[in-house]
Each structure stands twice: as C-alpha cells, then as structure tokens.
C-alpha cells in the first residue's frame, strides 16, 4: 500500500516537473515575477536586520556618562565606583579621569592647538556606564537616581536618540510585514489564475478521470504539486535576487567605507531565514493552487 502510494506521488511529481519544463519560458517568467515580488519584502527585511545588528549593541546596552563635581577627592570617586559596581542595572563601567580625558582631547585631530593653550584642565572626572535597561522609562529612572548623588554634577544620556531608532526599526518592521502581506496576496492570485487556466485546458482529462473512478484528491494532486513546486522555485529565485543584490552592494560599498575608515558590509540572509523564505513561498504556491482547485474543479462534473 505504502509503496503504491509513494509510486503514485513520485509519478505525479515527475509529471509536474515535465509539465513545468515543457513550457520553459512561461515557467521561467512566472518564477521570476513571483521571485521579484517576494524579494522586495525580503530585501527590506535584510536591510533592517543589518541596521539592527550595527546599532543593536547601542540599543541593547545604552551608555550613560556621569560627570563628577570638580571639588571631589579620590575617596568620593571610590565611593561612587563602589555604588555603581553594586547597582544591578549596570553591566559595566569605565572611569575616565580628567587627565585621561584631556589627553584624549589633545590627540583628537585639529584640537591640539586649542588644548595646548589651556592654563588648566577644565574637564571633570567621569564614569562611562553601560546598563541593562533599554526602555526609555527605566533609563530615565536610573538617570534621575544617579543625578541625585551629591558628587555627581551631571548625567548625560541621549534617550531621544534611542527612542527614534526604536521607532524607526518598528516602522521598518511594519513596512516589511505590510509589503509581505500585500505581495503574498499577489502571489496567491497569480497561482490561482495559473491553475485556473490549467484546469480549463485539462477539462477533458479531469472529466474522464472522474468518470472512471478518480477521487477528488487524485485530481487535485497534480495541481497542488504544480503550485507548491512553482512556489518553491519562486522562493529560491527571491533568495538569489536578494543574495546577488547584497553581494553587489557590498562590492560597491567597499570603496565608500574605506574613505570613512569604517568596516561596514551587509550580512546575507541567515540559513534559518533562507529556509523560512523558501518554505513560505512554497506554502503560498500551494495555497493559491488549493483555492483555485476548490473553486474550479467542482464545476467539471461528468454529464
């Protein structure tokens, strides 16, 4: 029984591939059209992922700067350090003494002249801390807490920047989802129509098969295989389009990033995302075919 079932499915798979290959141009163009449609949300998704990974660290462990009062001594500094070290919200901290800060400033391009003319060091001692909090409410709370310490002159933290980034990423995700939804409907519609035309041309075969005892699932099977395989191929073509584009952009970007002395290149789709893309595309093809078969096959009844 199982062998007969496998044979039958293998046979349908073989017939479907043969049918796809027998009209190579039509097949190719359908796959490309559907691939392009899928590559748009996928491309934006990849871009977003990259943006997130570049800014991710900043977004996940925000940084705060604590500038201390001028009049404090080493004891006060040690006390603050102890307090910071024992605060559960703080992951890491770094002390920047006023001397170190001045030295750093002197090494910065173009500022040497200004700093060498200074009579005394105007810079305060400072701590740079990283926190685990990444919502703006909690960060504000932490900032206010530290600000209350008498030794602390000022706590600087640009929470608006983080909020803007998060809002931007959120908007991006929404755009990806919306595009994906719209284009998914388009792909289902394309497949629906493709299968409708196939059913029309296979009218006689379907009618005769029904007359000699074919079950509905037998008649449905080749169309569902067709939809699924074409969906699968479209997903693969979307993958190639996105991967190829990223490769091109990275090549072009090299010159640009060299100028600015940064090492920035786009990451490719992860294996997990690649499989999801292809599986989702196959599912869309199957769904379009299934809907088309459901709405057209019953119209063909033997008379």
């Amino acid at each position: 029984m199982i062998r007969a079932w496998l044979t039958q499915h293998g046979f349908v798979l073989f017939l479907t591939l043969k049918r796809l290959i027998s009209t190579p141009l039509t097949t190719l163009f359908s796959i490309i059209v559907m691939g392009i449609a899928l590559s748009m949300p996928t491309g934006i998704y990849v871009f977003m992922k990259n943006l997130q990974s570049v800014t991710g660290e900043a977004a996940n462990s925000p940084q705060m700067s604590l500038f201390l009062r001028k009049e404090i001594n080493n004891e006060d500094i040690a006390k603050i350090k102890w307090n910071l070290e024992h605060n559960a919200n703080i992951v890491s901290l770094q002390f920047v003494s006023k001397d170190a800060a001045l030295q750093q400033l002197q090494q910065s391009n173009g500022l040497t002249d200004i700093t060498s003319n200074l009579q005394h060091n105007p810079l305060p001692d400072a701590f740079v801390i990283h926190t685990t909090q990444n919502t703006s409410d909690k960060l504000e709370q932490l900032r206010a807490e530290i600000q209350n310490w008498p030794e602390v002159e000022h706590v600087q933290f640009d929470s608006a920047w983080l909020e803007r980034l998060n809002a931007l990423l959120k908007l991006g995700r929404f755009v990806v989802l919306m595009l994906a939804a719209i284009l998914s409907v388009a792909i289902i519609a394309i497949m629906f129509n493709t299968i409708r035309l196939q059913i029309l041309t296979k009218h006689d075969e379907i009618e005769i098969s029904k007359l000699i005892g074919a079950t509905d699932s037998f008649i449905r099977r080749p169309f569902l295989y067709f939809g699924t395989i074409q969906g699968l191929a479209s997903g693969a073509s979307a993958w190639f389009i996105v991967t190829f584009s990223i490769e091109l952009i990275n090549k072009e970007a090299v010159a640009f990033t060299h100028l600015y002395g940064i090492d920035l290149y786009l990451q490719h789709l992860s294996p997990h995302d690649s499989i999801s893309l292809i599986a989702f595309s196959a599912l869309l093809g199957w769904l379009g075919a299934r809907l088309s078969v459901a709405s057209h096959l019953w119209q063909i009844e033997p008379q």
Partner: protein
Amino acid sequence: MIVFKNVSKRYPDGYVALNNIDLTVDSGEMVFLTGHSGAGKSTLLKLISAIERPTSGTIAISGQNIARLKLGAIPYLRRKIGFIFQDHKLLFDRNAFNNVLLPLQISSFDSKTVASRVRAALDKVGLLKKEKSMPIALSGGERQRLCIARAIVHRPNILIADEPTGNLDLEYARDIMALFTSFNQVGVTVLIATHDASLLEDTQHRILLLKQGKLAV
C-alpha cells in the same frame, strides 16, 4: 447483481426520462437494453455509475444502494464498473497505451504489473501493435476497441456499454459483440444499450425494451 426498484428520473425541466423501473440483472448475466433514442437507455446506464441520481426509488449494486451513495464513495463504485462511452471519451493528448493506463493510475497501482496488464487489455481487443498510436490516428472501430480496452484493464465485475457499435460497419459491430460475449463467458456482468436491431437478431441473451421511460414486457 444490479437491482432497480421503483426507479424514476425526472429532470429539472419536467422531462421524465425513466418512470417506475423495476429491473434485476443477475451476476454474470449479459443483457441488452434497446429502444428508440430518447427512450431512457442512456439515463438508465448513467444511474448505475452514479453519473445521474434517481429522483425516486432505489438502485442496488452488490447490495449497496447507489441512489443514496455519498459523494466520496462514488469513485470506488465506478472502479468496479467498466464503462464504454458512446463518444469514447479518449484522451487525444496521449497514445493508446497511456489511455488504457489511466484507470490503473487512478486506482493505486503496482508499477511492476501495470505495463503487462495494459498490454493484455490491448491484446484482448487486437490493438497491441498500435499501443504507440495516438487516438487521432485510429479508425472509428479501433477507437471503440481502445475504449473497451480501457474499460476492462482494471478487471471490473460489471461492464456497461452505451451504443458500442454506434457508427460501425456490421462486420466491425459483430467483432465487438463477440468481444463482449467473451468477457461475459469469464463471469463479467454485461449491460449493453443499443438501438441496432441487427445485433439482436440471433442473440440468446435477455433483451429489455424501453419505451418512453417504461420497461415494455
């Protein structure tokens, strides 16, 4: 065994094709169904394979009531029957071999025995040498025989033929009739609808006459 009890078929437009038919065809029997065109022969045959449903009455095949058969069960009923259609219903996009193969593809088949079964069926109707021919290249008689090969390839218990000698010369028609007799001799129930009186002259089998949707005795 095929049993009709009080079977009537009225079409939505009010036309009564069959009126209160009572009929029993025994297992292994060969029966001719005759009458003018429009007498209800085709309708009666279509009721047996559930292509049409009766308006009232019951139709039993091997004890199963066809009139109340669920949609999902219809394919399995049809696999027990070999149907020879008036218009052949061959597929013109594939050769003779693949036309006969279709019923075996439909009922889960074992690929090893399939080819030999198709060739046996083609051999039986004398078309073994034409297995690669496309239906368009076959004569009317050959197409009819191809249709018969397709109807018998899955070894059904019941064989139903609607005007199997429709447009054939008398000589061809006799060949075809001899084929049906040979199937009947190995135990197949055969039901043939025909308006061709010349076929019925020297038959020893039962002849049913339909007149305006009623069985004339």
